[in-house]
């Protein structure tokens, strides 16, 4: 199920503005990769280009290759909608669908894509996804209530349940804990550790302790100045990045000397 991602010489543009320059990285299956770096250095932009959400923004485009188990996602004839079915995403702010109940939110991927399923299979899927997101025990008695009535941390776990319900190969997380309190953050970090068994996870975070806690590999993005493109400075084992990085800039950043 989990697949690898190979990125080669990736340039990302907003119109004529080069936002991210020349990223090359390999992400192994069933690992957690954290992307760290100062604000505006292109982490989120890079993350969104992996499932082609980037091009939802008018004028945004990409040059280079991103391969999912050898398939170039930006090759000719590749349907971005099909790509997004394989690469799920969790956003910074929890965004459950306000018109849907908790139950319907979990199966939104099925419902919205008009996939016909038996009621029993759906029930099973909802329970499996909510258990997978560590939310089942909290909401099993109120599945018919609206999803927007949950707390922020629960909503975020609901969004994770929604993302894993469609059984993607890769899960992208864009600062999934930045709007949450420490307890909810812990719940989500535990969840990431469990999800690692089934999915390839890429997570953007501003919290370096979080990167150190949850990830196997860490990529450090940096930007030389405003108007300059962001770059991948280095990527390595999380332990190496945080103990003896190859680049001085990385050392300065992880030790809190800037950024």
């Amino acid at each position, binding site marked *: 199920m989990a697949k690898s991602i190979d990125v080669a010489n990736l340039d990302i543009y907003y119109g004529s503005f080069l936002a991210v320059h020349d990223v090359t990285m390999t992400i192994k299956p069933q690992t957690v990769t954290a992307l760290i770096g100062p604000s505006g250095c292109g982490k989120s932009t890079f993350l969104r280009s992996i499932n082609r959400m980037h091009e939802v923004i*008018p004028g945004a485009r990409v040059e280079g290759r991103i391969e999912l188990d050898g398939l170039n996602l930006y090759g000719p004839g590749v349907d971005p909608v099909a790509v997004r079915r394989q690469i799920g995403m969790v956003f910074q702010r929890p965004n459950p*669908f*306000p018109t849907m109940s908790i139950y319907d939110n979990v199966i939104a991927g099925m*419902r*919205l894509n008009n996939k016909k399923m038996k009621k029993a299979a759906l029930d099973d899927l909802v329970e499996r996804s909510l258990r997978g997101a560590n939310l089942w025990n909290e909401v099993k008695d109120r599945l018919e209530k609206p999803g*927007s*009535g949950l707390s922020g941390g629960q909503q975020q776990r609901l*969004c994770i349940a929604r993302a894993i319900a469609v059984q993607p190969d890769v899960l992208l997380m864009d600062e999934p804990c930045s709007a949450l309190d420490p307890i909810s953050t812990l719940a989500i970090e535990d969840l990431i550790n469990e999800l690692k068994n089934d999915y390839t996870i890429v997570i953007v975070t501003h919290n370096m302790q979080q990167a150190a806690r949850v990830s196997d590999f860490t990529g450090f993005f940096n930007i030389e100045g405003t108007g300059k493109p962001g770059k991948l400075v280095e990527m390595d084992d999380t332990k190496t990045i945080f103990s003896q990085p190859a680049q001085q800039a990385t050392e300065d950043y992880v030790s809190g000397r800037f950024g």
Partner: protein
Amino acid sequence: MSIDTQRERSPERELDTSLDAMPVIRGQLPRWSPWVGLVAVVLIVGGVLSATGLSIGLFAVVSAVVYAVGMYTASRVVEGPRKATDRLVTIIVTAAFLVALIPLVSVVYTVVSEGLSRFDAEFFNSSMLGIVGEGGGAYHAVMGTLIITGLAAAMSIPVGLLTAIYLVEYGKGRLARAITFFVDVMTGIPSIVAGLFAFALFALFFGPGVRMGFAGAVALSVLMVPVVVRSTEEMLKIVPNELREASFALGVPKWRTILKVVLPTSVAGIATGVTLAIARVMGETAPLLVTVGLATGMNLNPFDGRMATLPVFAYYSYVSPGVPREPSLERAWTAALVLIMIVMALNLLARLISRVFAPKTR
């Protein structure tokens, strides 16, 4: 030297931006003071004016001024300038609200009191066919209004909705800007112009002097489309982009995202806007006068000849009442009353719709 020391000191003083000291505890007027004050002012002013000959308008204006000045002064002495200003502005805002309410209440009162005399069963189950003087009704006009407005809505709602979806979800560049511009222009079209347009259009096909309900519906939809586009556009714009992205990230195509996520999220606002747009064109008189005219009998076919509608019925009953005048004038008032009631019912329906469809949190 002395200049230098002053120089050194002065910037420090300029940087001192602490606020002026303010007493923490101040006197307070008792909570009942606004009401008691109002009653006192009304009694005193009323007494003085009734001695000189009472005029309601003068009485209200003088009372309001005396009350505002009195409250402001009392509050300023006891409570200080900030609360005094608060009380003064409260009085002004309330007075403005009451002034704005006067015409509304007056219209409703007049229409209800004048219209109730013919608000009977006969009014609702007979037409004006063969009626001279007493009796008769506006059944044909009610039906005509419903048919023509219904046709106009059936034409404008799909066009307006789809235009708004195009503008918000797909449109960019020159075409979208042009459409937005023309929608804005259309919003300002005087209704008689829309009527003349429809009249001229149908005259091209059916010869000069043609009258039919459908032409009226076309004229009304010219007025209605921009209103629907505008209100729908606003509602679609406030759907958070995050919901669209959440849907895209699940691998849902754009058209299905719009259909299943964006529209359901905004359906309450859209339905409200559409209902209000219907209510708005329902009372249009001028375009219907030109395109549909008036019929004395029932005509349920909007493609064949003149039809009666409530606004035109009321208009003609009023300007050419015949002899005796009274029954016709009464019918005009009752037609106005019925029209107001239908519009009010639509407004209530709009509120109901927005309550039923609004996203819930518990």
